[in-house]
């Protein structure tokens, strides 16, 4: 199955969809062939709440990547459903960010991605 394509395509609905394992009732990120927890082969795609907390973060002050203009916040967000993903935090004063802060998803349009999931303070 074309996991990467499916992941990015489903984001265009405005929601984050991830694989869900009906056998062990857990979400799976990143998308892949089998459930990493119980090795179940039949995984569904399910929409998530889009709510979570900042697991860790950094304010990138210097970057030579032309796609990203510093400062920007690069973070790992732990979703309420128990999975973590690498993302950006937006609409957040740089000095107020901290580990554990509640966040919710926001879909943005960035070059190369029609719908890219970022997070904002909840």
């Amino acid at each position: 199955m074309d996991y990467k394509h499916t992941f990015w395509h489903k984001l265009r609905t405005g929601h984050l969809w991830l694989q869900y394992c009906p056998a062990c009732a857990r979400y799976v990120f990143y998308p892949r062939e089998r459930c990493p927890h119980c090795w179940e082969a039949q995984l569904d795609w399910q929409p998530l709440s889009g709510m979570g907390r900042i697991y860790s973060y950094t304010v990138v002050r210097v970057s030579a990547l032309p796609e990203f203009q510093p400062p920007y916040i690069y973070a790992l967000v732990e979703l309420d459903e128990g999975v973590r993903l690498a993302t950006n935090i937006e609409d957040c004063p740089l000095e107020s960010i901290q580990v554990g802060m509640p966040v919710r998803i926001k879909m943005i349009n960035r070059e190369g991605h029609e719908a890219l999931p970022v997070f904002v303070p909840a």
Partner: protein
Amino acid sequence: MRRVAVIGTGHSKFCFNSPKTSLEMLAEVSLDAMNEANITPKDVQAINVGNVLGPFEEGQGMIQSFFANDIGCFNVAASRFEGACASGSMAVRDAVMWVASGYYDIMLVGGTEKSTAMTTGLATRTFAMYGDSRYEFPSGFTFPAVFALLAHLYSNQYNIPLATLKEQMAAVSVQSHEYAMKNPNAQIQKPITKEDVLKSFMVSTPIQLQDACPFSDGAAAVVIASEEVAKKLVKRPVYFAGLGQASSGKLSSQYKYLPRIRARELASQQSYRMAGLTPQDMDICELHDCFSIAAMIAAEGLGFFEYGKSGAAWEKGETRLGGKIPINISGGLKAKGHPIGATGVSQVYEITRQLRGDMAEQGRQVEGAKYGIVDTLGGDGVLLSMILTNQ
């Protein structure tokens, strides 16, 4: 399996903007290693090379076969290893297994890189290729950002105020600069103070410029041989006692252990088990300090300090010559430099020379060292561990 030894070593000066090509640097250090091993190119049965970004740096892929011919090892099997910053260590470990198995008796292993041939923009982009391109790069993945995330997590999980952690991180950099001044091969030959570190510009909070290793050019090489051959050729062979390698997935999917790097713990446990030794038996360590926080996490993963305690150990001097476990007495990646494809081979060079007692004249010998350990981290996910001994 047969015992396998390092019988010859070579190391270039690590630097910014070398006038030499990757191949020229590698050829030079390989000839040094062969001379020390008392062999000629016709004795080399196979070659392993660590080289990461050659195609981007100099428009040169497949460096290994041209290298083999450049140094007169005509037509032998030559293989290139790519595991980001652990490429050189992968090349060494693989060669040890070939010789241990009896397939070859003598192999040459080299690593070379010319990172500074790239513009900063291209270097940042190509280094980011060693994170996940599908789900992490679209958010602006950089390696400073990864270790910055781990630093915040470290502060949070171990309940160390960020200001205290920053001082501990600075102590790591200060020590590395101090020892690099005694290492003629080191790229950075100037002392820094805690204040210098804390005043340097912010790269990715909380990581500042002086928490990070530089971009580097350089090469290193070792000749390895079976014990029987080694004893005929040299007086002081240094043996591989333990080997380990493990892999991890992208950072966001490393669930239970962060800021610990579980694959490092598994790789080092493999090598301790194979050697029949423990962390307490180690007399010296070269570990992967691409960032100061990375050094602290590594020292804990290798079993030298309790989780959350290694920063205090650096501050107390437990990682210095004469301390509990001397770490990165070469100056480490931070100040010796980090030509990524060469780094693992350079670490093996350092431990070998320490175990031969060669570092006295540079004023950085660990007296009576019997066992040393190498730790290398490639990208998010290639972890290598090797234990060497003169016993």
